[in-house]
């Protein structure tokens, strides 16, 4: 039954795409995030729906979309360099079979991030993209939120519809992404136009934000808690009544503690005693291994290079009271431990150069959003939405970069869509500025611009 509903839904979206080709882009976004083929048993698993959607999206863009004034941002060039470099390291990978397996989805995420901004020519397209990203993620987040309310969840316990732990269905990843999209959801409550902000939109948005905040509780991920704290600090910047905001945040935090499940509070308590925790200790050991490895292999070991690591670390445990404590140290040995950090993932797999390009892409994103944020801060007219959107996308990016310190999500496709939206916003506003300048002078400069290569 569920299979038929999914097929009908996709058929409707694809049919709409034939009326408005940009909807094919939205269809791909939806398929990539929700993976409906993994939620069904028959029908969809047999058809390469993702490939069909991307072929239709690119084909429609090439065939019918308006490509006048198409602008390419330097970051798209950097993404292309990263794509080519990853291809090179995959050819010379330490584990060619595993590397090829990861390359298969990484190149798609990067290529789509390069393509996406070219299609974002109107404000409505940027909004529609973000709306689909949020609603697609919401299908996982609502499940997680309700199940957390019902059972309290637990690390690795929360059932998010599918059994395999990949994409956004992985606990730590969804808890970071759920917190990262909160600023964007809030933007929709003020500046959305597809669903005009009224009490229904606000009710849904606040309920969804509540569900987003429950995800780190349900999955008991420490990273998610850190992300919530960072977001609370970042949002202070856009708050007018800061004292009130801080008081409310403090009150909400205190009020929430009694309702938190014990599995969550126990796990959060291990943030302070990280040395006694195998998960945290192995991270430090793996990071040390990666650092040593890249000294010998400056170009990195290709995807999944971590499989060769063999680490020994000491687990330190304090027992007894503060005045009478005994220190237990246990020697633990482990092998093929994953990076648990996007930064070390990039360093170990793509070497110094790959990490540098990746970092420039991230930092340039934060910087460009800061520029847009300030440039349009005083805007009250048709572009009043631009500065708040840049602020939301920047905050989302900051949260991702913090979460990425503890999870290996350097190539998470959802984040590359967010980066694509940032570039799209930037190039859209650059185009608008060009048009404004043009109206300032009587002489049309369009003839020259139209002749320029797209």
């Amino acid at each position, binding site marked *: 039954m*569920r299979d038929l*509903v999914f097929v009908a*839904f996709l058929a*409707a*979206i694809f049919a*709409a795409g034939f*009326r*408005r080709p*940009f*909807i094919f882009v*939205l269809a791909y976004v*939806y398929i990539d995030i929700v993976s409906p083929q993994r*939620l069904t048993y028959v029908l969809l698993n047999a058809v390469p729906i993702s490939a069909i959607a991307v072929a239709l999206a690119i084909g429609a863009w090439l065939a019918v*979309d*308006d490509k006048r004034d198409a602008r390419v941002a330097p970051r798209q060039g950097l993404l292309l360099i990263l794509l080519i470099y990853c291809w090179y390291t995959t050819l010379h990978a330490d584990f060619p079979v595993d590397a090829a397996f990861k390359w298969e989805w990484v190149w798609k995420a990067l290529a789509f991030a390069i393509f996406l901004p070219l299609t974002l*020519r*109107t*404000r*409505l*397209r940027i909004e*529609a993209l973000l*709306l*689909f990203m949020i*609603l*697609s993620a*919401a*299908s*996982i987040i*609502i*499940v997680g939120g*309700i*199940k957390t309310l*019902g059972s309290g969840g637990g690390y690795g316990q929360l*059932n998010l*519809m599918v059994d395999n732990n990949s994409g956004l269905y992985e606990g730590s990843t969804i808890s970071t992404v759920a917190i990262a999209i909160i600023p964007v959801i809030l933007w929709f409550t003020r500046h959305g136009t*597809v*669903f005009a902000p009224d009490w229904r939109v606000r009710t*849904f948005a606040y309920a969804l934000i509540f569900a987003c905040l429950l995800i780190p509780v349900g999955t008991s991920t420490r990273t998610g808690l850190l992300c919530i704290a960072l977001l609370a600090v970042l949002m202070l910047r856009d708050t007018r009544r800061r004292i009130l905001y801080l008081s409310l945040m403090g009150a909400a935090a205190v009020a929430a503690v009694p309702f938190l499940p014990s599995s969550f509070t126990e796990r959060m308590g291990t943030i302070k005693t990280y040395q006694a925790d195998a998960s945290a200790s192995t991270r430090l050991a793996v990071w040390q291994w990666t650092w040593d490895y890249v000294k010998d292999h400056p170009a990195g070991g290709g995807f999944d290079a971590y499989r060769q690591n063999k680490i020994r670390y000491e687990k330190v445990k304090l027992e007894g009271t503060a005045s009478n404590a005994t220190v237990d140290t246990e020697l633990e040995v482990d092998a093929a431990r994953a990076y648990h950090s996007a930064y070390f993932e990039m360093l170990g797999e793509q070497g110094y150069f790959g990490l540098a390009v990746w970092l420039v892409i991230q930092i340039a994103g934060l910087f460009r959003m800061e520029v847009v944020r300030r440039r349009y801060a005083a805007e009250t007219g048709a572009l009043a939405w631009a500065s708040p959107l840049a602020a939301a996308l920047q905050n989302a990016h900051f949260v991702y970069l913090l979460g990425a310190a503890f999870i290996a999500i350097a190539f998470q496709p959802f984040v590359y869509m967010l980066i694509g939206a940032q570039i799209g916003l930037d190039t859209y506003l650059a185009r608008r500025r060009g*048009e*404004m300048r*043009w*109206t300032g002078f009587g002489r*049309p400069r*369009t003839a020259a611009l139209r002749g320029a290569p797209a």
Partner: protein
Amino acid sequence: MPGKAGRACRIGAGGIPEGWRGAMIDNFSLAISHGLMLLATWYLLKRPDLDREPSPRDETPPARPKRWGRGDA
């Protein structure tokens, strides 16, 4: 829907598999998110500014020469 889930939960103690409640939550979440995406698609179909925004660069008809005293500027 939450009411139904609650009922399933109570009966669940008497023998209905726990998975039923989970499946109901899954279906509720999928229905609400997919329903909203369909609705958004419907609205997008009706919006001409999805593909094209009015721009100062649009071809404007050449201004007619103004005459003294009749200018409408």
